[in-house]
């Protein structure tokens, strides 16, 4: 079980959180034209890297904030956690 530092609440056990997918994916802007390819990339295509991965998590049983984690997918090492608005 991972030990995750919520940027708002501090260190908590994994069972308080829900995983939210790749955090480098940006939703195309609403009300703007988007090509089939770009939309397809956004909806379906994800990388599955071995190593560092930036991902969203949701503190579901806590402050209910979404935030970002940089995690190693093979060792589970968490390098850093950020608020959604923060960059690496």
């Amino acid at each position, binding site marked *: *079980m*991972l*030990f995750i530092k919520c940027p708002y609440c501090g260190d908590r*056990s994994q069972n308080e959180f*829900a995983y*939210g997918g790749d955090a480098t994916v940006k*939703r*195309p802007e*609403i*009300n703007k034209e*988007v090509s089939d390819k770009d*939309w397809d990339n*956004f*909806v*379906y295509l994800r990388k599955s890297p071995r190593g560092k991965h930036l991902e*969203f998590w*949701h503190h*579901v049983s806590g402050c*209910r*904030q*979404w935030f970002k984690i940089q995690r190693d997918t093979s*060792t*589970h090492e*968490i390098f850093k956690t950020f608020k*959604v*608005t923060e960059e690496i």
Partner: protein
Amino acid sequence: MSQDYRLDNIGLINRDKKVSFKFNGKRYYGYEGDTLASALIANGVHLIGRSFKYHRPRGFFGSGVDEPYAKVQLYKNGESEPNVSATEIEIFEGLESESVNCWPSVNFDVGAINNFLNKFLPAGFYYKTFMWPKSFWYKIYEPFIRKAAGFGVVSVKHDKDRYEHKYEYCDLIVAGSGPAGLASAYAAAKNGAKVILAEDKPRFGGSLLTDEVNIGNQSGKDWANKIINELKGMQNVTVKNRAQVFGYYDHNMLVMSERLTDHLAKPKKYTPRQRLWYIRAKEVVISSGSIERPIVFGNNDTPGVVLASAAKEYLKVYGVLVGKKPLIFTNNDSAYETAIEFKKNGINPLIFDSREKPSSEIINEAKNLNIEIKFSHVVVSAKGYKKVKSAEVSKISKDKNTLGKIENVDCDCICVSGFWTPTIHLSSQSGNRTKFDKNIDSFVPNQPKQKETTVGSAKGTFTLEETLKTSFETGYQLSKKITNNDKKILTPSVVEKKFTKHDKFWCVPLPKGKKYKRFIDFQNDVTVSDIELALREGYRSIEHVKRYTTLGMATDQGKTSNLNGLQLVSSIEDKIVPDVGHTTFRPPYTPVTIGTIVGREIGKHSKPTRKSPMHTWHKENNAVFVDAGVWLRPRYYKKGNETLFQASKREAANVRKNVGICDVTTLGKIDIKGPDSAEFLNRVYTNAWLKLPIGKARYGVMLREDGMLMDDGTTTRISENHYHMTTTTAQAANILSHLEYYLQVVWPELNVNVVSTTEQWAGAALAGPRSRDLLKKIFTDLDVSNDNFPFMGYLEGNLSGVHARIFRISFSGELAYEINVESNNGNFMWEKIIQLGKEFEIQPYGTEALSTLRIEMGHVAGPELDGRTISYDVSLEGMLSKKKDFIGKRSLNKPAFIAKDRQKIVGLVPIDKKTSIPEGSHLVKDVNAKLPNPKLGHISSSCWSVEFNNPFSLAILKDGKNMIGQKLFAVSPLKNKVIPVEVVSSHYVDPKGERVRS
């Protein structure tokens, strides 16, 4: 029976408390502090079970978690537990136990015939023998194997014991309380760290309890006692015995199982039997010690062959002799301690040492005590069936390949020692890639992946002096890192005997013409010849050899067999052990009861149960409840002897005719506030939301980004910047997360806040042609006429002094309202409505009637919004705005989504108007068509239409739009039914939707 093998003046057991217990129906006596194993040996009982494959007689081999044989079925307070290790369970008054794996009895075992048929039972025999013919597997082979193999019998009764979970955080956890663990824990605790010290056995001290050593002018045992007592008195230290740290998981999460009452005859009522600890530690010290390694020889599984260290522990801890004519067979110095201990207690041991000319302090001591030692000698095989009677011994050549003349030596036990294997399980579990240490011929921890440090013999440090030095230093350094304190304890002086090197020798060759079984894995009956066969048949990877032969796969996980197996593979393959590599260690280190893992999460506690504020009323009015997600909802209200079918029909018919009331508290409710709320709803829902007036509700549908339907519900504009959203019961939590994601991550510029109010409001739906008349009675000062309060209207009112929100919305398709009041007023509201509704013949209705009503109206719900349908499929395409963008819109032009023959919702009526169509049935055109018969669609929801009094179903059907009037077959292989059906409109009742607006 007297305790013939018990000594009077040695041991740590409580002689003042005699304990009686039963084994295989016979009563014995032991003392408080005995294990079942020590008490049985004291009584001269050495035969405890039969082996797994050959049903050979088996006794005791070890004295703790390493024990491969001595598994018993335990009976206590009417409960039964299989595979309890006799070397671990402590006896208590009234304990009852039985041998496992033997039938009809341990002394006469029918399965022992396997021992003579062994050519049919070689390695991989399960794979080879029982694969063919295939049809034999289920009926003949499998039941036979299940009965003949395996260990104890699992109780099928409900486990009445209580188990608990506990979460703990600490600076340092120390696994194992031998010298290394005590020293690390003590140094860290003295330096201010929050420490948990865990010991698997009842007694603390590990090897200090049995080794003749001195620490700081005290015996090792006294020093251990002193340290433990001091630790117990410290506020920052938790000390636990009978607690096994069995798993090392990510981010320094250690899991420990604590046995609280297994050793007690009558535990207190609410004391849990076992407790599972989840411990998050900043640093971990692994001081799990080492396990003695056997030397493999002929018939080395005969009862009476024991590990030399176990013999010493039985003597020094329990005052029990494993035999009175012991033969010690060793390749190293440590077994000399066992020999000396026998000698001191008046027993003459005989030492067979494989080494040629070893010389050390302890060997000299043995010589001085006149113990007979034979160097360059080995035990070739044990003689005796149910107990060792003698041993065949021989001289062995320097290269260990050639035996000399075989002689017979009388003995009643053989204490074997093949040096020591560090217990690296926890370290390996943590991700440490272990390395092979040639000096000790074992794997030891290498670079840690997590924050763990291994000390003592678990790391391959076999001198006490070095162990204490490094452990004190480790405890100090780790605690300093965490606490920033700098208080260092001096390492005490140590007196111990110096040992010389062990012999690299673990398998005695077979004498010419002999075919003794030489066991490597005692629990799974894996012999030297099994491994040789596996290698001959081409298995090379140790993981494959393991699975093919089942080496190390038993409940003891090969604690005494893994290294000897590796050694054998490496010598046959002419490789070195590290190249062969060891198999992966996985938790749990020792078996853990399922009860402990489950903890208190059983029955009704397995998940939270949510009840509406009106729950008690439902119960008192004969509601039969159903699980709806985590909620309990009335399924129907039983009158007299009614069945579900009859009751739900009655309830639904009353809604169509008069008025019904349904508890809709469970619907997800989300409060939405902020100046950009309308814009947000406009992006989240597929239809337009910017112009919804205050005091109006609107039905909305949400999609996922891939265009699939996600959820539906109504949202009401309460005031300028305040909306009240409802979701389906099942999706409530997901939708809130979904909204939060878009607000926090995607569109943070929108000034909107969302919060769940599901539990804040109690809800009642009033449905039926007479609901308006009833509403008038409830809210006497409100104008609820159709003009003032039309369909999709919203009002606030005073319900006998309680503030209420009233929505004119309908799920049943009838004229209907939903009334919400604050939760604590829910029951008041409900009773008030029931009371006022009497004159309108109000009846409560449950989820079954609710389903019936919505299905025959063609309203979609969970079974239609199953994640595989789009708006078109459920005829909600009219709600897709063409003018604005929304979540998932861009996905809707996919070719499959706009295909001409795209699936669509339809209604189905059986041709005979009688046979109900099972949900999940498939639709086909021709029931006799060649397989695979093309599937045209599936039945999503079924009901008995109360309007037409015949079965009616909703289905998602290919090209459903053009299929109305067609005749198809609904096929349910599960229910073995083929039903001819006619396709009709999904809006079976009131297709124009006039009633809701009436």
